[in-house]
């Protein structure tokens, strides 16, 4: 995991330096941001594996900034906080990773949380992609079945013939069979 990119967004220059220096020693590629807007700009520029964000980041609400980073699928965020209250825990539940670091910093704890987060995120992302793929193929399958039904009824042919018909159309038109199915459903369905 040594080539992982991390953005450290903390307005406290001393704490930023400590975290940055420590993570660099651990082999990460670290970029820093001192305010919300630059956290967004840097993150969008380098698409890091993880963003570590202090909840007291200036220049905009840190929670909202973190939400943008996760909503726009730029990266995942773990918070650094000095105030563990209900609001924080409630917000944490809505984030991709349920992990945080407290101030004053324990660097070993920070390292463990970072490693844990990056590894879990990788696994999570793999699963997400798999689910998305499955969902798409299921959707396409349903579409194809519906289009087949329409063709069978219209041309009074068997299911195999209907499939053959759709495949031929797809090859003739140089478009995927799913698109052909979609067009047929739209026009005749």
């Amino acid at each position, binding site marked *: 995991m040594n080539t992982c990119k991390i953005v450290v967004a903390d307005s406290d220059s001393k704490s930023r330096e400590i975290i940055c220096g420590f993570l660099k020693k651990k082999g990460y590629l670290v*970029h820093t941001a001192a*305010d919300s807007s630059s956290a967004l*700009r840097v993150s*969008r*520029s380098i698409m890091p594996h993880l963003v570590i964000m202090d909840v007291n980041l200036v*220049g905009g609400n840190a929670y909202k900034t973190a*939400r*943008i980073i996760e909503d*726009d699928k730029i990266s995942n965020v773990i918070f650094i906080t000095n105030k563990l209250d209900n609001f924080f825990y409630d917000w944490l539940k809505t984030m991709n990773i349920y992990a945080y670091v407290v101030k004053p910093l324990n660097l070993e704890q920070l390292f463990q949380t970072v490693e844990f987060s990056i590894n879990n995120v990788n696994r999570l992302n793999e699963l997400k992609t798999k689910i998305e793929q499955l969902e798409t193929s299921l959707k396409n399958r349903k579409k194809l079945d519906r289009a087949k039904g329409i063709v069978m009824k219209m041309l009074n042919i068997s299911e195999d013939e209907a499939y053959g018909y759709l495949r031929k159309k797809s090859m003739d038109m140089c478009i995927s069979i799913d698109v052909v199915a979609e067009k047929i459903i739209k026009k005749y369905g």
Partner: protein
Amino acid sequence: MNYQKNKEELLRKVEELEVEFIHLQFTDIVGIMKDVTITVEQLEKALDNKIMFDGSSIDGFVRIEESDMYLIPDLSTFAVFPWTNFHKEARLICDVYNMDGTPFEGCPRNTLKKMLKEAEEMGYKLMVGPECEFFLFNTDEKGNPSLETHDDAGYFDLAPVDLGGDARNQMIVALKEMGFRIEASHHEGAPGQHEIDFEYDDALKTADNIMTFKMVVRIIAQRNGLHATFMPKPKIGVNGSGMHLNMSLADLEGKNVFNDQEEELKLSETAYHFLGGLMKHARAYTVLTNPTVNSYKRLVPGYEAPVLIAWSASNRSPLIRIPAERGEATRIELRSPDPSANPYLALAATLKAGLDGIVNKIDPPEQVTSNIYEMGAEEIEERAIDRLPINLYQALQELAKNEIIKSSLGEHVYRRVVSAAQYEWKEYSKYVSQWELDRYLRKY
């Protein structure tokens, strides 16, 4: 935006999309979008036109003793904000009504609607396509906008990513999801300057679209750590941001009436008269198309913005250009408006100018074929070419003299526009700028 539905259908749609918050939007007289946010539970009440707000808290609306007003949502303007994932948000653009159920005459959207009705009674429908420019600047560590553009910012050292271009693409995606048809988008002349053009539509929809566009651009910029500004001239020495308006009239069947295949320039008599009206009243409506002190710093020679009141079918320098396309795309491009204008009022006033041209058969002066920027003072004088007002104060005086344009606004809006502009000018006149200090502090 592409939803044209009745109340039940809209409620169903909102439930299906799991929308949680609805923004009821309207525009104040100075062109700033205002917003009353309700939860989805209150939507039915809003659709029954029962949502009230305090009109006295809005610039240029009403006095405190007559403050309760109603928001009447236009269902066809329903759109979900595509950038809201966690708690879905949507909006409805509203008209403002008085307590007694009559349209509030200080609501700019009502002003435009009234003007469009006048056009309709003459058998015309105004179609408009805007070209809206804006700047993207970086923000500083406090989140305040700076004048540093992403183009020359240091982040390129990090990675070769065009943050501004990326943000613009996200804006286009969001606008498309909200029902816009985007025609073109590109980086403009100045560093950090961008333009996104969307397809023409009827005037009311275009005015709504301009307001929505500005909101989307600002929000997406913010999500990118950038600040979008529609200020007409934010930087000295580079082009300002304009909002050219491509205008055409259609008859009630939707056929373009500016087109005439037989004529030399393939323009109809109606087109010439509309053009004549736009030119005759140009000095008077400028305070509406260019309503800020800063607007007039864009309207100076040398930066592709118009200065002289002239027209041309061939070159881009004068106030009005007739783009080469003909047929249904025949149109007149008014080049002076800037994006600080209230689009409802700017369109109402320019439409009135054009219609007056048609009613009184005003012929435009001869077109200018040479580059007007290179024209000498003598030639300008000889051809009796007038110029646009040089500042907000002059523009205001020009409006005061012109009863036709004043009538397009109605008494209430006119008075508020005047007091807003007067206040602006007074504040500006009091201010001692850096330019003056640099120029005079040592000299005198």
